């Protein structure tokens, strides 16, 4: 079946749901379809004949025009996420695709750009993101899903909880979530890092002291257990707790009482304990560095928090969350991270877990003025150049290997665009093609 010859091309374009417009070589709009009018709020009769930047007013119009780059390089751009300002002052997120327009003789006569309104998609995405959030914890991975599924029941119980996980996995966030979901949510949440305080100070911090207990103890001081009355106390790095305090903590767990330093009477406590450590407590028990009875008392409910490298699929969600949060905190308008930057972060092993990811993005926010976070905004240790040069520092390279590195980096910088790479390296298209082929042989 043939395409009907009497059907004008504009009728086909007008029936599309995506906005489409074409420009001539002087950037005057020559066609503006119905969807384009609907999405931008500008009637076609007013748009046609105007300069495209006066009609589309997008984030690319002043200096980074997609159509200009397509027409210059005879290339295409597809699904680039940008925004434009609607005639009513709203910022509308759109995905654009652009290509040059050529006549029957192959002569460039202008360009065509199509755009899709992403407002609904963004709204749905936001709703989905909410479903991946549990209190302040973000993730959709199966490992985290298991923890999420039991967290409400665990929280409702009064059981002591032991959180195990590497440093930076968000143990305090989980402890807070347990507190917020429990009956004690209106009570205080008190966090103590047992590894950060010297032994003698830790005891008085946890249990308080009475006036005269030691020099300078002029009046009574309440400890964290007293401050947390009716709420939850979070004991981080419990594996670093000194032996004599372990005994005192065991007594709190067993008898719900403790004695402040210098006190002659026990004090009753009404506190739920959530403990956490990045150490292997079972091993510490075997080595004799942690009391076995305390370990069993703490180990009523154990939650193993997965390291970030075990839940790579959560990285994009976490990035999105941190970008939104940093935008709000710093009053910036960073749109997100570019695809190649995301690839780098997805491959990084994250020894520092979520905390490391957060620090990386905080660093990138300092260097990135606006738009998308690019590779060059990442800390140096994540830059591809640093990785490329590291193994070669001590090994001599052949001229061909050096050329390969130069070509590879130039291609990365130009997002794989060969013409732009040729221009940057001042080489012809043929030379680039031959070099790429040679590099593939070397790599093979």
């Amino acid at each position, binding site marked *: 079946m043939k395409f009907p010859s009497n059907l004008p091309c504009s009728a086909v374009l007008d029936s599309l749901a995506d906005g489409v417009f074409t420009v001539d070589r002087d950037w005057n709009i020559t066609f503006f379809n119905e969807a384009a009018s609907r999405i931008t709020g*500008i009637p076609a009769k*007013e*748009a046609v004949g*105007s300069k495209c930047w*006066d009609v589309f007013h997008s984030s690319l119009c*002043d200096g980074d025009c997609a159509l200009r780059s397509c027409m210059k390089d005879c290339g295409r751009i597809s699904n680039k996420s940008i925004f434009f*300002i609607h005639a009513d002052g*709203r910022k509308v997120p759109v995905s654009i695709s652009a290509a040059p327009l050529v006549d029957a003789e192959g002569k460039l006569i202008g360009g065509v750009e199509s755009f899709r309104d992403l407002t609904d998609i963004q709204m749905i995405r936001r709703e989905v993101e909410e479903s991946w959030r549990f209190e302040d914890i973000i993730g959709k991975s199966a490992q985290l899903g298991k923890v999420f599924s039991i967290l409400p029941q665990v929280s409702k119980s009064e059981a002591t909880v032991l959180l195990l996980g590497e440093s930076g996995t968000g143990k305090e966030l989980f402890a807070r979530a347990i507190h917020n979901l429990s009956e004690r949510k209106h009570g205080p949440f008190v966090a103590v890092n047992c590894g950060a305080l010297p032994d003698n100070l830790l005891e008085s911090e946890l249990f308080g002291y009475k006036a005269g207990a030691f020099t300078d103890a002029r009046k009574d001081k309440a400890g964290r257990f007293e401050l947390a009355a009716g709420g939850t106390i979070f004991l981080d790095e419990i594996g670093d707790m000194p032996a004599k305090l372990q005994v005192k903590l065991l007594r709190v767990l067993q008898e719900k009482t403790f004695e402040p330093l210098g006190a002659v009477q026990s004090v009753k406590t009404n506190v739920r304990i959530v403990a956490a450590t990045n150490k292997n407590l079972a091993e510490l028990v075997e080595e004799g560095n942690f009391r076995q009875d305390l370990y069993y008392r703490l180990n009523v409910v154990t939650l193993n928090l997965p390291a970030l490298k075990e839940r790579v699929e959560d990285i994009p969600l976490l990035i999105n969350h941190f970008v939104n949060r940093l935008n709000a905190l710093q009053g910036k308008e960073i749109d997100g991270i570019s695809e190649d930057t995301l690839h780098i972060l997805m491959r990084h092993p994250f020894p520092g877990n979520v905390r490391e990811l957060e620090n990386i993005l905080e660093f990138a926010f300092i260097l990135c003025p606006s738009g998308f976070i690019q590779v060059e905004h990442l800390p140096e240790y994540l830059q591809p150049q640093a990785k490329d040069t590291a193994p070669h520092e001590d090994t001599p390279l052949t001229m061909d290997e050096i050329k390969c590195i130069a070509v590879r980096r130039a291609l990365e910088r130009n997002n794989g665009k060969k013409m732009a790479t040729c221009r940057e390296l001042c080489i012809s298209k043929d030379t680039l093609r031959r070099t790429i082929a040679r590099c593939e042989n070397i790599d093979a």
Partner: protein
Amino acid sequence: MRGNEGRNNHSMLLCLACYEDRLASVFDNAPDLKLFRVEDNKICPAGYLSLPSKDPKDRTSAIMTCGATFLICGAICGCTMNELEQAGIRVLPWIRGMIDEVLSAYQQNCLENLVMPGCRGRGRCGQGNRGFRARKTTQEAMHPDGPTLNSVQRSK
């Protein structure tokens, strides 16, 4: 008006959000601000400011620091517009054209002819017609008897 402080009553600092030699398509992304002193019957260039930050607050502060209180620009996001207006900056948005063309239209009190497509005939886009009223009020205050300048008198 802040721009008039310390000067005579017929002096005002006008700010244009530009990209190269035209008004920037989007104020929120405009790379440059060009300043012009409107004094009695002359418009003189009064400065140039490059804007590396896209943060609306930074942009507002930059305009205020220059002493400008009147801005002509292209498309503008509603939130940025509020930010500027709350800071006491009068904004005339949704204008297009080359810098010379815009200044000339400003002198001749016919900026309405340079309104971006989709805004003509229904007031200024998005925010009713406040921009033009602000514009007219300002000019009326400057030239109570109507515009008297012509392009020959404009100094560059």
